[in-house]
């Protein structure tokens, strides 16, 4: 689907109707790009629309009726899901909220502190530290996850909430973004002025620098929240008791069981639909607060 959109749009995009000839330039709707963008939107919304509709179908309707025709089983599906293993689904949702919420909060605090320190203080090994950080951003999660698993196993912490939470608190990417934001948002003059007035370093950070960093830190928080919520590999490795699973892992195990019993398909689909709701809602509410400049700021440095 996407490929047709490109093929049609690519040559036409620049030669949009009425753009090349004749001064003065008239304001017209550029039809081809508009249609191409709408096609793109259809493409991205298609699976979401599908899951919304499929979740309304009862088990038999799922295999017999046309996919985009709504069914009649939504309430029953939710009831089935709720009844599945005494509502373990809601436990997964709660776990995800806990991991993502607490994890993102702690990681934002750590990122703000270290980002500020890296941006403001000149100390020995600062550049090395920063390069190591950069390498950390690029490090495949599994190279960390295996030894983290073994280390946590030695501390008897695997298969616990902490095993998923702890490794995600320090996020190299979060620190990296915080450093860039702190460097841009907190002028050195202000920090100097604070020192002249006799304020302690901690006081300068909490009273002066932190308020200036808030917009950037909101972005870091949201970034971390989405990252932790979407994380699959770490809980996949760390956890074996499904009471502690986050929603991603829960749905995966449900699918794994459901593959052999199509009766579970409706559960998986309804579960996926309900799992998408909170993040999409969050996304719609917050997208206006995102300071996306931060991301492109990261590009420029």
């Amino acid at each position, binding site marked *: 689907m996407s490929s047709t959109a490109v093929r049609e749009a690519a040559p036409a995009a620049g030669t949009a109707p009425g753009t090349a000839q004749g001064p003065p330039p008239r304001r017209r709707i550029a039809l081809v*790009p508009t249609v191409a963008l709408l096609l793109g939107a259809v493409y991205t919304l298609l699976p979401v629309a599908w899951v919304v509709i499929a979740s309304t179908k009862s088990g038999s309707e799922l295999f017999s009726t*046309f996919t985009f025709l709504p069914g009649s089983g939504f309430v029953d599906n939710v009831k089935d899901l709720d009844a599945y293993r005494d509502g373990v689904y809601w436990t997964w949702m709660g776990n995800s909220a806990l991991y993502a919420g607490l994890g993102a909060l702690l990681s934002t605090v750590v990122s703000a502190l270290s980002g500020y320190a890296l941006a403001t203080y000149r100390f020995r090994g600062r550049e090395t530290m920063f390069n190591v950080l950069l390498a950390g951003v690029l490090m495949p*999660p599994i*190279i960390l996850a*295996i030894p983290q698993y073994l280390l946590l196993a030695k501390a008897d912490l695997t298969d616990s909430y902490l095993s998923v939470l702890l490794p995600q608190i320090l996020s190299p990417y979060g620190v990296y973004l915080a450093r860039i934001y702190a460097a841009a948002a907190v002028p050195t003059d202000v920090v100097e002025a604070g020192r002249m007035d006799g304020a302690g370093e901690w006081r300068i950070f909490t009273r002066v620098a932190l308020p200036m960093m808030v917009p950037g830190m909101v972005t870091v928080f949201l970034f971390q929240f989405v990252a932790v919520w979407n994380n699959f590999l770490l809980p996949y490795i760390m956890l074996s008791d499904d009471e502690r699973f986050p929603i*991603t892992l829960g749905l995966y195990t449900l*699918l794994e069981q459901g593959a052999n019993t199509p009766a579970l398909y409706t559960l998986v689909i309804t579960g996926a639909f309900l799992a998408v709701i909170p993040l999409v809602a969050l996304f719609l509410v917050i997208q206006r607060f995102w300071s996306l400049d931060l991301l492109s700021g*990261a590009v420029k440095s």
Partner: protein
Amino acid sequence: MFALFFALPIGYAVWLSLHKVHVSGLGLGSGAREEVWAGLENYTDTLTDSEMVGGALRVLGYGCVVVPVMLGLALLFALMLDSDKVRFTPFTRLAIFLPYAIPGVVAALLWGFLYLPDVSPFSYVLEKLGLPQPDLLDGGPLYLALSNIAVWGGTGFNMIVIYTALQAIPVEVYEAARLDGATPLQIALRIKIPMVAPSLVLTFFFSIIATLQVFNEPTTLRPLTNSVSTTWSPLMKVYQDAFGNGDIYRAAAEATIIALVTLVLSFGFLRAANRRTKQEAAR
């Protein structure tokens, strides 16, 4: 914190990768299994392992589809959004960015069902038209099926990064170009794309890294098809060795190699990109 969760695990992984378990006797009782120095044995084993090489080749093929298509689409959409004659931009921008909020596992799950002949709308339509239905979860189409999930999930994010950079270009630049008689196509090719080159570099770079580490999507599709092996991608192979086969030493060596490849690729790429930027600045 840094030491505990980054330096220590990395060091430990490297240490593990240089060891192996030596089993004496029947491997029973304490002391029968001991860690011994293995040198580079795990590394040479990994590099000559046909499964590992196969996984690397599969991911290479997959990346050759995903990265150009995803970034091409992202750039195209960003340029279109940036054009002032286009309608519905707030809606389309949001819609195309939306998959970013959906976990990779859930995305793979949704697409997995859309691919599954029993429930797929595509199969339904093809069947009604009396056309043959390709099995999207097998052979060559499987690559496209997996690539599609990555493109679907990643285009919006990259589009936003490029779009934000486009928004930062001052309007005067366009006015000047327009006065010189440049067409919108020329403006896009000669001004916009070069000016957002740093974002393109960054998105390229992140996409490559993400591709090397593909794990969630093929893992999620496994229950739906027999064509995805447990060692489909290098990371899946690492997982399989560490937790399926219980050979953490081997897994550590594999993980170290993947990390090294990632680092070499990315730092090499960053340096090349920097050099070009400097050259252009010097001109």
